């Protein structure tokens, strides 16, 4: 009986090892094929654009300010410099990347509905983020979403977006010591 259990355990272990091998191999390949990071010493954040979608002014400003705050927070570890839209000091920087954000979708929920029903009244914002180099070439782009589902004011969706955008930038940009 004991021999049977030993044999069964060994068989299970062998099966698990054998079946997981292709997945591990694929993961290794994915890591080696991952795109290299964009090298930049500074980011200039442009004001959020909302040409097609009517976005309230407080959302536009909150998106911009939260984005700058979160990029500065993430940039502390990799020593980026974050410039604001129109900052004259950014003109002297080499390896400058411009972050252009355009609102693609906006659904203004209701804090009251969220507090009363929990499930209804979510606010969501979808922003198309583009990282552009000095020559105007788009280096990287992605749609990033910000949401507030349960607790908090509507503007909390802008904070959610900013955190996600800063994480995306942190994952894809590598700091250089360019001046």
């Amino acid at each position: 009986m004991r021999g049977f259990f030993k044999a069964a355990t060994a068989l299970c272990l062998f099966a698990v090892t054998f079946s997981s091998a292709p997945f591990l191999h694929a993961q290794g390949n994915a890591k080696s094929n991952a795109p290299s990071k964009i090298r930049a010493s500074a980011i200039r954040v442009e004001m959020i654009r909302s040409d097609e979608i009517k976005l309230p002014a407080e959302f536009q400003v909150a998106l911009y300010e939260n984005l700058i705050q979160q990029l500065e927070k993430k940039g502390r570890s990799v020593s980026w410099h974050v410039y604001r839209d129109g900052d004259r000091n950014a003109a002297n920087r080499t390896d400058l990347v411009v972050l252009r954000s355009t609102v693609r979708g906006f659904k203004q929920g209701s804090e009251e509905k969220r507090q009363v029903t929990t499930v209804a009244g979510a606010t969501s914002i979808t922003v198309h983020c583009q990282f552009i180099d000095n020559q105007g070439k788009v280096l990287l782009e992605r749609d990033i979403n910000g949401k507030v589902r349960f607790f908090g004011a509507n503007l909390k969706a802008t904070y959610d977006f900013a955190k996600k955008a800063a994480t995306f930038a942190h994952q894809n940009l590598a700091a250089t010591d360019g001046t």
Partner: protein
Amino acid sequence: MLKITALILICLSALTVAAQNVPPAVSSQPQTPIKSVELVGLAGVKENSGGTLTVGGGKLLFVHSKSTSGIAATAMEDVVTGNDSQRVVRGTLGALSMFGPYGSGRVLSLFRSKLDSITIQYRDADGGLHGVVFTVPVGKADWLKQELIAQGARTSIPTQAEASAGSSQSATTGEKQ
């Protein structure tokens, strides 16, 4: 007769031009501080900080916890007002009330107070664009906006008073034509 008509017309056009160039009257009332909450954007101020707003000396001043932050009215590129509402029972008590029995916390969420918001975009000395959002009691945002415009701020959306003045002006010119 022709000369007199021409003279009257010249005088009238000169008066119209002069009336347009008169700067908007700045109210001489003493500046009373307005209770407000800074939601986001003011440098050196924590988010959701309570304080008071005053307009004076060409500046918007936000006084909070023994310190003062100021924005020059002339640096303001856009001043926009909006409206919102908030729960009457807020803060720690408000959070605790959400756990009340039989959905009483949810019922409390239906009791709300209205408030105005004022959004300002301005440039710093280096030309960098900043934005700040304040909430103020109902009816104060438009007054604040008018005060700031009188001190040199700009706006993309004219105030109700300006809009009505503009429409009456266009109506009079239409009548003349």
